[in-house]
């Protein structure tokens, strides 16, 4: 297909057979670098993308981003070659993936906010609006400068470092979320609603989202071979989510299988030098390559190369295990890295 043909199809149908096929292929190329537990809107099977998950992502990308938000027009306003089209579409897809994750984060925060608003020190004012009990307020919507003041106050509340492979990091510890809500309620001289808090979270996450919602994955250059996402990332997600419980019920291995898993992990762990173990530990804590490089006094390029070596070694040691036990193996590896640090 030439670019002239692609352009003609766009002029005629916007998305026809050829453009659809091309977008589907790009979705597969890009998405497989990202853990499906975090970015797929349907459950991943065995820690990997499935055809159904790719199709669902292609559908939401095309309907929400390319057509409803007119981002295909944005691409076509600037593309003059097939390479341009692919480059811009990849870029659009990465934004779409980031949006999926951010929506999850804000929805989770609002769920937690809703629980808190149902209890003291808050009381329902009227409809879906709340006030701090006993506080004298005016019955009106907040002024813009009041909301901005509340936003500034909320921006001072410390946030937790997000876990790179967690679908919806909680962002605020319970006490900090309490402090944020109280600060907002005290700043407004009127009742607050979930819409006001959503707006504040959206502003805060505008600053937060790009740097914290796509951290580890953006380090993986998509054109590079051999850095493909594997089940290790999703497994480590579960290891880091003890409080939240597993995303999918996990099977239990027999004693013999459990011994095989432990042996594979022990061998793998022994193959890692202290520096490699530290790099892996930091990567799993969600640090971008630049920060890992600073922490171990190496260049970023060295860390990128080491990541590839480490991931290849993990794959090498775990591939002999039944796929069902990969997650368990990774849990053990994460624990052993934590014990050593």
């Amino acid at each position, binding site marked *: 297909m030439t670019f002239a043909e692609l*352009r003609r199809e*766009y*002029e005629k*149908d*916007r*998305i*026809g*057979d050829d453009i*659809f096929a091309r977008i589907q292929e790009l979705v597969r190329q890009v998405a497989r670098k990202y853990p499906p537990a975090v970015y797929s809107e349907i459950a991943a099977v065995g820690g990997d993308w499935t055809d159904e998950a790719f199709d669902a992502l292609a*559908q939401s990308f*095309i*309907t929400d981003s390319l*057509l*409803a*938000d*007119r*981002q295909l*027009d*944005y691409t*076509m*306003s*600037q*593309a*003059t070659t097939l390479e*341009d089209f692919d*480059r811009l579409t990849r870029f659009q897809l990465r*934004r779409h993936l*980031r949006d999926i994750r951010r929506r999850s984060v804000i929805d989770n925060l609002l769920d937690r906010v809703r629980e808190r608003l149902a209890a003291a020190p808050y009381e329902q004012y009227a409809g879906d609006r709340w006030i701090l009990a006993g506080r004298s307020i005016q019955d009106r919507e907040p002024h*813009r400068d009041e909301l*901005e003041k509340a936003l500034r106050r909320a*921006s001072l509340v410390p946030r937790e470092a997000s876990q790179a492979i967690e679908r919806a990091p909680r962002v605020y510890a319970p006490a900090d979320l309490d402090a944020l809500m109280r600060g907002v309620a005290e700043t407004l001289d009127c009742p607050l609603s979930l819409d006001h808090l959503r707006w504040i979270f959206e*502003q*805060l996450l*505008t*600053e937060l*989202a*790009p*740097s914290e919602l796509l951290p580890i994955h953006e380090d993986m250059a998509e054109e590079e071979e051999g850095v493909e996402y594997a089940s290790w990332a999703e497994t480590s997600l579960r290891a880091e989510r003890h409080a939240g419980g597993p995303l999918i019920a996990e099977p239990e291995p027999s004693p013999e299988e459990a011994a095989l898993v432990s042996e594979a992990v022990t061998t793998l762990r022994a193959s890692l030098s202290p520096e490699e173990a530290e790099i892996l530990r930091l990567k799993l804590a969600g640090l971008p390559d630049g920060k890992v490089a600073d922490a171990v006094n190496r260049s970023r390029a060295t860390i990128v190369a080491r990541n590839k070596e480490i991931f290849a070694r993990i794959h090498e040691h775990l591939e002999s295990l039944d796929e069902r036990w990969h997650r368990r193996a990774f849990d053990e590896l994460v624990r052993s890295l934590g014990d050593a640090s």
Partner: protein
Amino acid sequence: MTHLPDWLIAAREASEGHRVSAPNAEIEPTCPRPGEMRTVGPMDDDSSGHARLVYVLEVDGEYGFATVALTTNELDLAIPDDVLVPGDKSGAPFDVLIELGIVAPLWWAQLGPVLGEVALEEVQDDPGLRTAMALRRQDDIRWSFKESELHELQVLAADCARTVIDEPEVAIVPEVDPEAVASCLANSDARIARLLASDGSLRCAPIRGSAALELVQLTSRSLGPDLLEVVLGRVLNESLTSEAPATSPRSRSAVAWAPPRVGSGAERIDELVNARAERRIRTMRLITGAEFWASERRPDYCAARTEHGAVQVLPEEL
């Protein structure tokens, strides 16, 4: 026979609207206006720069450049300098951010189709369109995003910025179209006297190269003595005594004009444009006749593509 799923056909129907023009689509070569959102591309097809969408802030008619701010669809990466422009305000099919901190000059000939238009004050003063958090830390990804945005615009603007800053004198002195001079000589056309300003100074650079020698031979004795003074004494003879020898070899390789010139393929004008392109001065004011343009209306600018790169030509009436 199409193999599209039903959901795609339904989504396509729900989002029908006009298609956007390609960045390199042919457009009417008219002077840009502040407030326009236009695509821009590199001057030369083999450049490493990518086409982008920009917002025109100011227009300079003397050198033929527009001061533009880059725009982006990365709405999440806004900083307080940026202004959100919803599509329903600009007429563009999508929302963009105008990045008022990422600004550079671009030649008019780099500008492509208009995608939308909105007055800056209409959006700049609306606090609802400027809500971004301050950019405080270098590890905020918006920092590196802005750096890469600046780099992209610098690649597109490099030629224009270099010429405007380093060679403003050369860029601003008009050249005279040797074909127009030849036509005046052949027809004893008194318009040639317009090459002199009222104080007797020359309005254009002397004709150089072998074109000057050719024109000397064409000089008609039927011209009055005053006009002969203009043609021989100033426009042509000055070139014979200039630092660049009149007979030095110059490229006359063919130039592609857009919009086309009448009688393109004329070697003397090609020599002039090639000389500019070789020196990487990508703009030229050209005193010429209306009869040299195929269109009814003289274009505000045109692009002349040579083997050494493109030159933007700003025609002026002889």
